[in-house]
């Protein structure tokens, strides 16, 4: 039996503070107690992707009433799978900053996610953005 945890967040920065406590509570509850000591790294990755959604999927008109969903489960390989669904503006890969050797000031969010997650996938379907992060178990 697969257990899935769901978190619905308002599209604002303050709401992002619910992610850490949610992960701490739900990672063991979904059958992934072996990953409980890695909640800190999961939080940073999930937080960065969520902030990216707040910043880029919505604008000043839509953001005040917008929400998006995060679900997570543990797959058969004992990996942690975290999915994000928002009904905002489609993600444009061309907007992604290039991180080089020279330190830049903005744009580290997705770079950090890529460092922490084993994989990161994006798809646009049914007028929604679907992001999937997998963290190796």
């Amino acid at each position, binding site marked *: 039996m697969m257990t899935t945890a769901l978190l619905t967040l308002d599209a604002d*920065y*303050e709401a*992002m*503070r619910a992610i*850490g406590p949610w992960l701490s509570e739900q990672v063991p509850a979904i059958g992934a107690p072996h990953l409980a000591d890695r909640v*800190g*790294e999961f*939080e*940073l990755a999930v*937080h*960065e992707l969520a*902030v990216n959604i*707040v910043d880029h999927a919505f604008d000043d008109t839509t953001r005040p009433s917008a929400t998006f969903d995060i679900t997570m489960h543990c797959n058969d390989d004992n990996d942690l799978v975290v999915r994000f669904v928002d009904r905002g503006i489609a993600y444009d890969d061309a907007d992604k900053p290039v991180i080089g050797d020279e*330190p830049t*000031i*903005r744009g*580290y*969010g997705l*770079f*950090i996610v890529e*460092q*922490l997650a084993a994989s990161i996938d994006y798809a646009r379907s049914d007028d929604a953005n679907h992001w999937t992060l997998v963290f190796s178990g």
Partner: protein
Amino acid sequence: MSLPTSSHEIRISTISIDGRLDAMRAVDLRQEIDDTIEQGVVRLIVDLSGADFVDSAGLAALAKGMKDCRGAGGDLRVVAAKNPDAARVFQLTRFDQVFRMADTAEDLVATW
């Protein structure tokens, strides 16, 4: 016979961050850094020893502050976070090699 002497006063301000330095709090930090520079203090220490979470927005606020301080002839230096969850973002982005960092503010002041 007395020898001529001179003294130089260096002003260093320290901003301490406890708890979270995230997208929400980064706005306040940026403002505090701007205000401090406007007051003529361009040597800043941001003490993260009590921080338990730092994200890329917090990092960006620090990096912008460092750029502004250096542009004005000073620097922004960082007391390293003790909590590994707060230190992680510096290691992942290699900003731990960009900022001058130490374990205490005293160590940073001593080398100024």
